[in-house]
């Protein structure tokens, strides 16, 4: 709702965020570099990814300066859809893995 200052956010903000994005990417890279494994690896990578996506949507796509309701209306459904899709992908991969491991196909 803060439209008054919203129209003229300083260029500095963009630069800051831009820099931050680089730093975050660096972190993701470091996760790889230090061979972090298992849950830790994936949670870190996901965290950095989410942060980056969040910054991009918030700053570069001007979401930060939108109304709260709009933010929810635009962001919530895709997030939910992504959660559902991710869950179902995990599920089918699990079944697939079980079949590959214990059953023999074809032949």
């Amino acid at each position: 709702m803060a439209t008054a200052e919203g129209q003229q956010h300083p260029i500095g903000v963009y630069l800051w965020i831009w820099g931050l994005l680089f730093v975050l990417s660096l972190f993701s890279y470091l996760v790889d570099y230090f061979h972090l494994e298992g849950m830790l690896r994936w949670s870190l990578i996901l965290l950095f990814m989410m942060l980056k996506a969040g910054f991009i949507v918030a700053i570069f796509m001007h979401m930060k300066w939108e109304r709260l309701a709009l933010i929810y209306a635009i962001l919530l459904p895709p997030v939910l859809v992504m959660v559902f899709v991710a869950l179902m992908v995990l599920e089918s991969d699990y079944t697939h893995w079980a079949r590959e491991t214990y059953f023999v196909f074809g032949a």
Partner: protein
Amino acid sequence: MITALIIILVAVGSVAFHLMSPWWWTPIASNWGFIDTTIIITFWVTGTVFVAILFFTGYCIWKFRHREGVKADVEYEPENKSLETWLTIGTTIGVVIMLTPGLFAWKQFITVPEGADEFEVVAQQWQWSYRLPGKDGVLGKSDVRKITPENPFGINADDPKGKDDVLIESDDLHLPIDRPVKVLLRAIDVLHDFYVPQFRAKMDMVPGTITYFWFTPTKVGNYEVLCAELCGVGHHAMRGMVVVDNDSDYRAWLAEQTTFGQSLAKAQQQKSIDLASTTDRATSEKKVSAQ
């Protein structure tokens, strides 16, 4: 008056019933005491809240009941932020107290320890059969489409690991005590569920995939297997038996069992006789369990 009393009595009676009930869980015979502990924790938390709410309700009903001719001193208070906040926080704490041990127990439940012995349970309408990995410790691959009267488990005959698999085509299985086992569960027709109350563990068996759980039997004895997922008219009659043996008994039992390789050879010898009797058996069994 009476209403308030009865509400309080419901609370007191429920607690009394809980304390004196002859119906309680079977003595545990596996390593899943953690699950029982979690249940007890949950009982404490929820029981306290249940009793508290009922007492409060009963008290309100008694104290603020309408009395003819007495002007009630009713409060007009739409909301009370701080009270609601505190109640939220309190409830959240209660949830955390219950959830944390629950999640730890689940983590344990799905993480099979290194070196656990594997065996397979195969379910079909309405009977159990079992497969042990044999000397090599690995189960041969299987496929429902390979099931024939000679090969009721559908083991892939081309898989060398399958030849020494021990097949137990009866409802009874023996297990050695104190050794962690990973139970691989497989169904060839519909959903079933391998459930032994004393082990606390259970898991559905799903055609088209393999499911698992693990446990360590901790007490020698005979334990009845129940099917816990509706699987048709014979569901309630689908019973089996797990016998937990000490080591020597177990080895004696194991020595009597036949392997896949042996049964295959035997089957080749008297193919025709076998075929007839298996189909016979399947149909007669259906009749029996349908009753």
